[in-house]
């Protein structure tokens, strides 16, 4: 239908007028304009001999540029696919910012406790620099596939990163698997990605299954710590790929951890009104609500919870509630809601590295690092560190090195024990989520309790008298 032309109705920015030709193959396009300019001059001169001469000259120029590019210091090309235009372009750009900053740190000399930060380039490969080659997926799995293939076959990248959306990562990694190119992903969260038995696909970041498990682990920890019992859980999730898988994970772990699911509600994210959903929740009287949502429904539910006075002991959520557009919309009504996260700026108090990286980020882009940028930030380090140890860019050597990766938690910007891949699934065994609670309209880390910067507010304070 015409209204749903822009289908990612749930992402914050949908239609963008920015086109980003410049980001893809900047080198070649630069040569193209060089050529065009000299051609235009010819027309003005309108003499045959000058035309021939300048064509020859521009050809020479091209030759000169390409030769000089080749004679430069050795570069290692890494490909990355992201949605740089289209519905969720703002998210794709956010991820790209994280990757670009990481590459700056690897290629330059920085006094940071990150892999390869202190040296310029990769020391074991004669100081070779990392060069990113980006391709635009427009958020479409088809493009993810074809662009990954193009990057590998015509750009000769030695490894791949990206693509944020799990569905796109899924197809792009099918190509890298077939062409035997290592793929390090740190921004897609669908559990199935690392359950396919792929040999060349590695994931640094946690997935939704881990996030769901974490939320139940938090409940157990909380019961132990405060002595407040939780018995009943309501599970609420939107009914597409992301929500239904998250809902499945919620139900699985509820059974495993011994909680009773008193309401299991699916809904369509694009709704005018959610009173019937909230009515069902109120009737089921849960102790805790677990909600997997996108942004529009997160806003609508928050308002309706307040209006109808839905009052569980805790509201634990995924995704929608941490989108940059959520808090500016609901303001103080978002307070005390708990969201899953991999990163929060307040972790800097416990881990100064985060503050330093955020300062660099802010200097480069003028904004604070978001969760998206922070997740994508780590993949280039993992790859470059492995290539450096492998002392080679041969795919098999990189994969072997990735299997031996053992980066300590202190060299990451997350509260993890480190990065080490499971030999079977290639999922980072140390990846875990954190939980943040919205306190005074800010995301504050509250779990794991040893990384918390403030104690959790529990139970959820009454709507009235706030």
């Amino acid at each position: 239908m015409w209204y749903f032309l822009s289908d990612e109705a749930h992402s914050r920015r949908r239609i963008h007028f920015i086109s980003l030709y410049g980001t893809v193959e900047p080198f070649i396009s630069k040569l193209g304009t060089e050529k065009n300019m000299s051609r235009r001059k010819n027309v003005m001169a309108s003499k045959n001999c000058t035309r021939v001469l300048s064509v020859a000259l521009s050809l020479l120029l091209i030759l000169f540029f390409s030769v000089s590019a080749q004679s430069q210091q050795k570069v290692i090309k890494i490909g990355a696919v992201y949605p740089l235009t289209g519905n969720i372009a703002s998210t794709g750009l956010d991820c790209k910012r994280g990757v670009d900053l990481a590459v700056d740190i690897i290629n330059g000399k920085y006094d940071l406790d990150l892999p390869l930060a202190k040296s310029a380039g990769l020391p074991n490969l004669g100081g070779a620099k990392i060069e990113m080659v980006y391709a635009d997926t427009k958020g479409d799995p088809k493009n993810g596939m074809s662009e990954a293939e193009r990057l590998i076959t015509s750009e000769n990248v030695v490894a791949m990163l990206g693509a944020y959306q799990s569905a796109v990562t899924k197809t792009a990694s099918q190509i890298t698997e077939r062409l035997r190119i290592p793929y390090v992903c740190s921004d897609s969260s669908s559990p199935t990605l690392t359950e396919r038995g792929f040999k060349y696909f590695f994931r640094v970041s946690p997935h939704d299954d881990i996030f769901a498990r974490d939320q139940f682990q938090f409940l157990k920890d909380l019961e132990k710590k405060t002595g407040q019992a939780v018995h009943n859980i309501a599970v609420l999730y939107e009914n597409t790929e992301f929500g239904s898988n998250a809902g499945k994970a919620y139900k699985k772990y509820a059974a495993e951890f011994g909680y009773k699911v008193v309401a299991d509600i699916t809904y369509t994210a694009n709704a005018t009104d959610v009173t019937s959903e909230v009515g069902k929740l109120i009737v089921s009287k849960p102790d805790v609500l677990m909600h997997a949502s996108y942004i529009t429904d997160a806003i609508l539910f928050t308002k309706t919870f307040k209006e109808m006075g839905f009052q569980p002991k805790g509201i634990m959520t995924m995704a929608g509630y941490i989108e940059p557009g959520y808090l500016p919309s609901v303001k103080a009504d978002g307070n005390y809601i708990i969201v899953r996260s991999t990163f929060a700026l307040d972790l800097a108090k416990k881990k100064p590295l985060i503050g330093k990286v955020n300062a660099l980020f802010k200097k480069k882009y003028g904004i604070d690092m978001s969760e998206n940028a922070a997740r994508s930030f780590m993949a280039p380090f993992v790859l470059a560190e492995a290539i450096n140890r492998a002392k080679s860019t041969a795919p098999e050597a990189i994969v072997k090195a990735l299997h031996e990766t053992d980066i300590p938690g202190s060299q990451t910007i997350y509260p993890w024990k480190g990065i080490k891949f499971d030999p079977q699934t290639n999922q980072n065994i140390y990846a875990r989520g954190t939980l943040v609670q919205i306190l005074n309209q800010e995301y504050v880390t509250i779990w794991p309790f040893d990384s918390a910067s403030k104690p959790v507010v529990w139970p959820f304070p009454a709507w009235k008298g706030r």
Partner: protein
Amino acid sequence: MPDQLLQQLADGLLIGLMYSLIAIGLTLIWGVMNIVNFAHGEFLMLGMFTSFWLFTLYGIDPIFSIPICFVLMFVMGMLIYRFIVSKVMKGPMLAQLVVTFGLSIFIANLAVYFWTPDFRLLPPTMLQGTWQIGGVALSIPKVAASLGSVIASVCMFFFLKRTKTGKAILATEMDREAALLMGINTERINSLSFGIGAALVGVAGAFLSTYYYIYPQVGGLFGTIAFCVVALGGFGSIEGAFIAGILVGLAQTLGGFYFDPSYKYAIVFMIYLITIWIRPQGLMGW
């Protein structure tokens, strides 16, 4: 349990009256001109943004910006009719379809361009809070919007039935050629109806902005439901749209509550399908 039943009934009625108000403008435009205004949802969005900006920039409370929305959207509707729609009225049916369709995409994208695709919510305005009556919580902005919807519908009803201009609109709706022969300037009636249709949905937008989030694509969903309401109530019928709006609202909340919320829109459209199967002209259509 009875509390929740009452709660769902009340909320169904409130959201239903909002649907009625949105649909009345659409049904008027359809009835008079036989034009399907695909841009109706986008008009709603413009109404919401007008109210939002009047509040943000000038501190005018949405309740006072309702008349401003009415006037602005009325003028905009007239202009759109005069410069765009009237040009294709003489053209083939398909051109009429495509022009409002194109207009809807154009307006939505223009809104993205000027106002970014971000979500906005008005801070608490004069209309805020909830009334607790027994076990039922009534949101005050929704109650106000529903009252507004009832008032607007009654006004429209009397305007059409009692005033000379209103009667001229009805006459045009019934038979354009006969109306022309009776000396009615149907061109003027057309532009007037388009203006009133846009103004009514502008008012709906101003009310909606007090409790719903505002973003450029917001018209999509409400627009689709408005079409369903118009078809259910009977094309061109104000009373039909009013009743059908309430029906759709109730079907949505009660259906969602007693069955599965993810099917609530399916239930709405099923009721529509059953109705047109029994009465193809809709509830009050002729």
